[in-house]
């Protein structure tokens, strides 16, 4: 009954063709790239800020939860409608509204894919720097909601460093402008607070991003090692030498083997790790920088270093890394992607401990990591049909997060807390920290309608715990 009233009201504001409520359709919206499933009560296609506002007003009036959905690539369950309600499908709001090279800004709708924006800017000589590995299918709205990273974070930062303004529909359906093309707007930095809020503060319907000139030159290298420690040591040596490469990416042997089987990019199957290093900027010193890096790699025991001579070779060196998550799917029916971070110098220690966890739980854990910024992605392989194995996987995943925290890191670098890591939040945040975050949530969403049931674990029952 309630669902019929809801669907009727939604049809009134966006038209019958833009509301889905048949079970077969709803089933398609009950999952994302994480492992849980929950069915929504309705799915609504929206085309404008006003439509989003109208839909949210319906939800607000009826006390129905809602959440936005973009590419559905979220790895932590952020797009799963945990308490049912309305999934607001943003994918048709995919226009590039304005490219403004004079002011070094672009205005985009949130349903545009990250890579589409890149492709639109490239012919003009500009780029948007955040480039999550899922960029072909991840939308900018999703990047904003999750504060996505990508391989270029070490030098260029994450999404929040490149988003300067947002148009937001608040959970009561009111429209607000946060930030904008001009810098330093007076008042609290709500743009900064909103980025990374995982859909729990409302829905952004326009994003103003910082764009920059493409670099004059890029040099890409791939170093091959027989020891993973030597690879990590090289990363530290490069940073200690005062260089700031655009990327420092590593993959371990299991990933290399999977990648090689699926993409055939010429990686040796018997090596322990490969390190992908890219330097960019003015062309005058790139040669010298890449020579210095090659030297450091060799000094630290690299078996071989390949330097891309042209764009084609560069693409080949990158193909393996970009295709890593996909290729790992060959190794097992399912995998859990961990997303811990540690201070960079703790990488060798954390990798050893991850391997120990794998042995202890009898699980295979290939590894892909952003070595420059200490963000590791152990991929715990399993078969979702095997319930006992899945339970072991969840325990192993939690242990890996705990050991990242022990080494001075945290439980999520770029994939978000979502449903996945709610129970790990207390590894990092105190009760006071959690209470303070909930104050912000209440300020945005007092009725708890925007993507409820995410990020925060249930309150502790025991009195006096802090």
């Amino acid at each position, binding site marked *: 009954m309630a669902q019929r009233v809801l669907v009727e009201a939604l049809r009134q504001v966006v038209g019958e063709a833009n509301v889905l409520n048949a079970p077969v359709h709803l089933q398609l919206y009950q999952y994302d790239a994480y492992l849980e499933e929950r069915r929504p009560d309705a799915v609504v296609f929206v085309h404008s800020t006003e439509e989003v506002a109208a839909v949210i007003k319906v939800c607000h009036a009826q006390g129905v939860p809602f959440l936005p959905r973009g590419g559905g690539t979220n790895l932590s369950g952020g797009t799963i409608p945990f308490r049912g309600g309305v999934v607001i499908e943003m994918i048709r709001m995919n226009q590039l509204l304005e490219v403004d090279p004079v002011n*070094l800004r672009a205005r985009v709708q949130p349903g545009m894919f990250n890579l589409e924006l890149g492709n639109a800017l490239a012919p003009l000589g500009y780029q948007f720097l955040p480039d999550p590995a899922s960029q072909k299918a991840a939308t900018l709205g999703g990047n904003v909601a999750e504060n996505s990273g990508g391989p270029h974070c070490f030098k260029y930062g994450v999404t929040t460093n490149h988003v300067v303004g947002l148009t937001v529909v608040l959970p009561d359906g009111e429209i607000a402008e946060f930030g904008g093309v001009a810098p*330093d707007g007076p008042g609290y930095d709500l743009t900064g607070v909103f980025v990374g809020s995982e859909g729990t503060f409302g829905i952004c319907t326009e994003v103003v991003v910082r764009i920059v000139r493409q670099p004059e030159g890029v040099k890409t290298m791939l170093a091959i090692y027989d020891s993973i420690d030597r690879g990590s040591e090289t990363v530290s040596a490069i940073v200690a030498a005062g260089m700031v490469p655009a990327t420092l990416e590593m993959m371990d042997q299991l990933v290399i083997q999977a990648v090689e089987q699926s993409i055939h990019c010429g990686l040796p199957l018997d090596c322990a790790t490969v390190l992908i290093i890219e330097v960019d900027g003015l062309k005058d010193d790139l040669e010298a920088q890449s020579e210095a890096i090659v030297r450091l790699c060799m000094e630290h025991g690299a078996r071989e270093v390949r330097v891309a001579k042209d764009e084609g070779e560069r693409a080949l060196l990158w193909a393996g890394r970009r295709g890593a998550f996909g290729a790992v799917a060959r190794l097992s029916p399912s995998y859990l992607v961990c997303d811990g971070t540690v201070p960079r110098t703790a990488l060798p220690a954390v990798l050893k401990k991850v391997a120990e966890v794998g042995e202890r739980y009898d699980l295979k854990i290939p590894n892909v990591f952003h070595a420059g910024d200490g963000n590791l992605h152990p991929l715990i392989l399993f078969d979702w049909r095997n319930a006992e194995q899945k339970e072991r996987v969840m325990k192993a995943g939690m242990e890996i997060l705990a050991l990242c925290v022990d080494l001075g890191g945290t439980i999520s670098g770029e994939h978000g807390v979502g449903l996945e890591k709610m129970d790990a939040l207390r590894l990092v945040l105190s009760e006071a920290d959690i209470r303070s975050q909930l104050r912000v949530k209440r300020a945005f969403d007092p009725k708890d309608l925007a993507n409820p049931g995410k990020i925060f674990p249930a309150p502790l029952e025991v009195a006096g715990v802090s």
Partner: protein
Amino acid sequence: MSPDLASLQRRLVDLVGAHHVDAAPESTVPFAVDGRVPALTIRPGTQDEVASVVSACAAEGAALVPWGGGTAMGTGNPPERVDLVVRLDRLDRVVEFDPDNLCATVEAGLPLARLQKLAAGKKVLLPLDPPEGDRVTLGGLVAANLSGPRRLQHGTIRDWVLGLRVVLPDGERIHCGGRVIKNVTGYDMNKLFIRSFGTLGIVTEVTVKLLPMPAVQATVMGLFPELSAAASVVEEVLGSFLLPEALDLLDPGALDLLTPRLGTAGGFAVVAGFAGSREIVARQVRDLEAMISVRGGASRRFQEADSTETWDAVTNLFQALPQEPFRVLCTLAVPIGRTAGMMASVRAQAAAKGLWAAVSAHAGSGIVRVAFRPEDGCSGDGAVPGLTEALEVLRGEAAAVGGSLVIQEAPRRLKERVDAWGRPGSAFSTMRRIKAEFDPQRLCSPGRFLGGI
């Protein structure tokens, strides 16, 4: 109900010792905020003491204002009330310096210059250069989001903070972020406290990223008789592959102020700072000098220590201005491409209202810094009405392109006529709710911020 300050004072003495609580005028008058003299000043020595002090104030309903280096205390509207100024100068410890991981954790009262000195020993730095870097503290940088010319390449403190510890208005201590570069564990609470001007609590500890120190630095100044030529250099640089750290525009008023240190006089200047390897600095210096020369400008080149000295002079250009009869400092923030146009507007307003003005812009970032003074021979008070009008006109122009005008320093009688921040926009209802959630009693810097927050 007004707080019982005598009882509060006794309580505070118990908490931090009599030596660090002061009610004597010589200790309170220098810490007046826009003319409001606090009843007490207090100097807690640890972060826990800050929490106890804030708790005690919350229990007593006393209003407090945190005070670091004091460099941004002129910014904002006069506070509604100030019972207590919490001085953070004793919180100046380095908690952890980790150059291998390019990060440092320090207490909020540590001056930026001391962090830089420590970092330089390991050939790293925090690449931010706000005015008065010797006085400004890390906590102040965070609370006011101060920046300088190098924000073009390096952004502001917002881009460098990894973690904060904060004492909330009820005295509860929280931790935001951490010490890793990528961190999406819960909300990005750092952003809430950066640029919150002490209205949501007191930042007591800051963890920042650091950067390897560049091998070489150099600065090129191009001098032109016309603004349009200097501005067209800026435009060409921004459209090129060049990656200057800083790109400022100076008007004749600003160049006059630099005369004692740099020997400049008259005209307009574009100043570009470059850092990095010898090859890329040399190439950029060469390219920029060519851009200047093709427009008929005169170039000056400053290397290494001279380069540092030049930027120090440019950044702190307004600090030498006499405060009598008064000076008004404000910042216009506009889309990058509007920077030079805004500089011209400021000059036109000054001329029309008979005011002296100096304008210095971070031209690649959309920031226009302005100093106004009454013309020589003018008593000062008479200049206020003209200045009020000029500020309103400029604020209107900035707002028309989505920008803002913020008053950094002004006499009280001007602040009574012109709001320091301007009119709040559609985001304000959320901001007000945040303030109400965190500080329902309105005890932390009440009234200083946007819209009376």
